């Protein structure tokens, strides 16, 4: 779901079947976290 | 093959022989006979093209942009109000380096509405990046289409072209024209093979947006290509002469220029009248000559300077006016002669189809001999 709904298309499946964002393209919008039915993603604000 | 034919039909036939794959045009007087003839050719199988009956001129040129970007030779025709309506598409096509050829049956700009000839329409787009060719007669109007496609599609140019010829005066007049055969044109004009096109096998992006870090360079490159077109025209024109006997290599043409003291500079069908007037004046011993401009963009600054350097005075005829300033041609000629002491005077005439007779040309020669100029010619005081 997160992979489908990411506006950047930067969420990729790794070899173990987990989905991770490519942090060089992630804008931190939080849609993945908001939409995950398992609430498996949490957003954490980067240090200022 | 020599035949007496209407200007529009001669042009349509020339376009047919150029084998455009997409024709997209909106009818407007006095270009209508061209687009009607082309529709006829398609309907009867003598032109193998997709003919798009667009709903306005903006769409006409936009469809050509799409077709050309997709790799097909595209053609349109318009004039006056129609050309003005596609103003932004003209800049867009040149900026995207798409070698579209468009016939302009020159017509005055409204308001007030006029269907008759002057050159304001194409002149007003001289900044757009399109090459501009101006025909003196229907033979030139015809030939310049082959030249235009050949030059536009040259990889060193890749810029669109206007082929301009005076509306009604040329488009609706019957003149003898030598039309080429299909084999002739196929020999001269190779198949359209752009370096890039819209193709799923090799995706590229056309028409992106450029920030201030990049825009200037795009404009420089486009200007360089347009200025460089002069050399491509020279080569293409010489080849045309070798094959068909008519030389289009030079952007200007002199008539009775060798020892001329008074030189008239003019563009388009008016040159025919000027030549006749010159013949008369020469018979009376007056040393008058004509410098005809056939390529207005890129402007032949060097050639104009060279051909005018021995003149004692120059009279520039403009069938257009940059309102609030002067005619477009006189400004360019003055620029070409900057630094010389030769007096240059401009004359605005023939606007909105006002007829220009030989006696008007003679009047202008008298005016320039007296040092008078930079005025409208033939104003009807009773109308003012």
């Amino acid at each position: 779901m997160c992979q489908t709904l990411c506006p950047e298309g930067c969420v990729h499946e790794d070899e173990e079947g987990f989905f991770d964002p490519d942090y060089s393209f992630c804008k931190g919008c939080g849609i993945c976290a908001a939409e995950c039915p398992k609430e498996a993603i949490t957003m954490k604000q980067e240090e200022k | 093959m020599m035949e007496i034919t209407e200007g529009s039909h001669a042009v349509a036939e020339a376009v047919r022989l150029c084998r455009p794959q997409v024709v997209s045009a909106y009818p407007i007087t006095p270009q209508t006979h061209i687009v009607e003839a082309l529709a006829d050719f398609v309907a009867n199988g003598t032109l193998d093209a997709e003919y798009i009956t667009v709903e306005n001129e903006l769409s006409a040129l936009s469809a050509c942009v799409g077709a050309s970007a997709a790799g097909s030779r595209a053609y349109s025709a318009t004039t006056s109000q129609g050309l003005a309506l596609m103003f932004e598409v003209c800049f867009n096509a040149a900026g995207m380096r798409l070698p579209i050829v468009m016939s302009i049956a020159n017509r005055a700009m409204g308001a007030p509405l006029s269907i008759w000839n002057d050159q304001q329409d194409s002149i007003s787009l001289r900044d757009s990046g399109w090459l501009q060719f101006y025909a003196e007669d229907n033979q030139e109007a015809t030939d310049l289409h082959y030249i235009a496609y050949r030059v536009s599609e040259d990889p060193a140019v890749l810029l669109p072209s206007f082929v301009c010829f005076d509306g009604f005066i040329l488009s609706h007049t019957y003149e003898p024209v030598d039309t080429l055969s299909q084999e002739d044109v196929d020999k001269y004009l190779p198949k359209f093979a752009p370096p890039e096109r819209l193709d799923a096998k090799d995706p590229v992006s056309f028409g992106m947006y450029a920030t201030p870090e990049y825009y200037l360079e795009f404009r420089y490159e486009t200007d360089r290509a347009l200025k460089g077109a002069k050399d491509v025209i020279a080569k293409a024109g010489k080849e045309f002469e070798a094959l068909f006997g008519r030389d289009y290599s030079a952007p200007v043409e002199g008539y009775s220029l060798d020892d001329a003291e008074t030189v008239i500079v003019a563009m388009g069908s008016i040159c025919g009248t000027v030549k006749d007037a010159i013949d008369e004046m020469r018979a009376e011993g007056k040393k008058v000559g004509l410098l005809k401009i056939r390529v207005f963009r890129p402007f032949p600054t060097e050639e104009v300077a060279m051909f005018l350097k021995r003149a004692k005075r120059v009279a520039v005829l403009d069938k257009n006016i940059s309102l609030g300033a002067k005619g477009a041609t006189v400004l360019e000629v003055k620029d070409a002669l900057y630094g010389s002491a030769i007096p240059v005077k401009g004359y605005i005439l023939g606007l909105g189809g006002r007829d220009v007779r030989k006696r008007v040309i003679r009047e202008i020669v008298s005016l320039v001999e007296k040092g008078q100029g930079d005025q409208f010619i033939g104003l009807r005081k009773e109308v003012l």
Partner: protein
Amino acid sequence: MACKTCELFDSGHRACGGCGAALAARLVTKAAGTDTIVVSSTGCMEVFSTPYPETAWKVPWIHSLFENAAAVASGIEAALKKQGRKEKIVIMAGDGATFDIGMICISGAFERGHDFTYICYDNEAYMNTGIQRSGATPYDASTTTSPAGSHSFGNKRPKKDMPAILAAHGAPYVATASIAYPADLMQKVEKAINTPGPCYVQVHAPCCTGWGFEGDQTIAIAKLAIETGLWVNFEMLDGKITRAKKVVRKPVTEYLKTQKRFRHLLSQNSRMRKLLPYRQWQTGTPRSTGSISNSRKNERINHFFRGFPFYLYHQDGNMILQHDLS
């Protein structure tokens, strides 16, 4: 052919975080596949996807001007026909380019029946130039050229019914979709691409920056639009509605309160509350318009729900197709 695993709209584009249009571009290109030529009009998507020298598009792409995508596509279609090529043409244009400035070109292209798919990503205003109202801006929405103020409730006109207009042109397939339902969106886009002739899909693409909500709520708000009946997902074949997503409508205020562009309608300002018939919206029991006595209030409610064919309307909270009523 669709390519669900392809990413033909690459990361690194400059869209705002949480952009609905960016997601729409990703989903549409997946549904379209590699054998596609995309024509974009000027707007957010064109600008954030192609800052020279970078491009997010992995399919051939062209941008000409704001209003002429349909005309450019007409020319490409003609060229492909003459060259015997099979690529599909997909136009991606915003609501500004589609509903307003592009009307002439779209009408002409649809009337001529060219074979292409026109996707309108509808973020309901001219977003790229700074959130000005368009013909797609909903009634009472606050934009920079239709701002809410002491003398205004915001946008004075209902949403233009673009699907009906294009169906009237004889478009064989017209649909609306939303990024909230990506599988449905991709299915519709694929169907449009595989239907010969000019097809149209209007995709609801909420804009966090323009509508005033946090970027992570984009999908949630797109869903709410449908659940409150302010966006309707439907399909039309040859001008007749064949499928529509039925919902049991939630109170409209649930959608309105999430976005800054509507918050003026729910403010504590007593003048606003007196003038607007919100009671039935708040209780969640919308009545058919006949039961409201004040005809001006009728108008306001009707306007609020316009923008989709009148074949669909609400009764007792349910969305029904007109033919069901008979």
